[in-house]
């Protein structure tokens, strides 16, 4: 059993087949994973509980990240380029635990939004849909 700090977590994007760290990361929410189900409730059901069955598919909610945005920094430029010229991309989060655990996934649609506020630095929000199933290491 161990409690790991988050400091040192790295978000990486595939740039030119090279896993490249996105600098100035503030926070990142990894894609959530869910085995999907449907209600198979019927009028002639005996019990009172809502019955559900598995669809056999696993779905993922989008991942999100927040960065201090540097419009001149290459990995940040790459994010908006992948929207201007839509392209699927490989991502990974490398955690700072001893075994350097990772979550890998492929993004489909991407969203990039610059955020400015009087009492804050220039930031950007990143959000992306997941294509397929993310892979989580132990």
């Amino acid at each position, binding site marked *: 059993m161990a409690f790991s700090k988050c400091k040192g977590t790295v978000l990486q994007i595939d740039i030119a*087949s090279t896993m490249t760290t996105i600098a100035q990361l503030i926070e990142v929410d990894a894609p959530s994973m869910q085995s999907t189900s449907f209600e198979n409730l019927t009028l002639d059901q005996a019990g009172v509980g809502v019955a559900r069955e598995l669809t056999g598919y696993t779905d993922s909610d989008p991942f999100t990240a927040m960065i201090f945005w540097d419009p001149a920094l290459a990995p940040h430029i790459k994010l908006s380029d992948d929207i201007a010229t839509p392209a699927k991309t490989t991502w990974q989060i490398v955690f700072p635990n001893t075994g*350097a655990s990772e979550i890998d*996934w492929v993004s489909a649609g991407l969203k990039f939004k610059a955020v400015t506020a009087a009492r804050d630095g220039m930031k950007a929000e990143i959000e992306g849909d997941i294509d397929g*199933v993310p892979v989580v290491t132990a």
Partner: protein
Amino acid sequence: MIRSQEITHPDLMIMRGGVLDQEATLRARQVQMNLCASRQITWDEYKRRTSIRAQEGHIVDHPGAYYLVMMGAAEPYDDECRQKCGMTAPKIEAALIAGEKLHKAQLTGQRQHDAADGDAEKAHETRLERLDG
């Protein structure tokens, strides 16, 4: 030419007529991801099939390689790359120095970019050792 770094495994790079087919390469990676997600291969096996450790000086032959130069992770190998990145030689040199410092800082989670060299290298090695099997 990049520093020692994790790159896509050559077996996964699908070329069509001498040109890298990025979509096909991505699909090949997803096949391995699915195998790993369904526990048909171990995570270590997945990682070894999809990534390798590129040694320092490795030449990245990719249409987007100039991004690596722009972020100080590589230096241009040919004129095409030099032209695409749109940087002068001093700027490339400055980017390499800044990129190296940032790289080490991020590996050790030091926000002030003052990570000790030893710590950074250790963290980097842990991640790359897995690729060597």
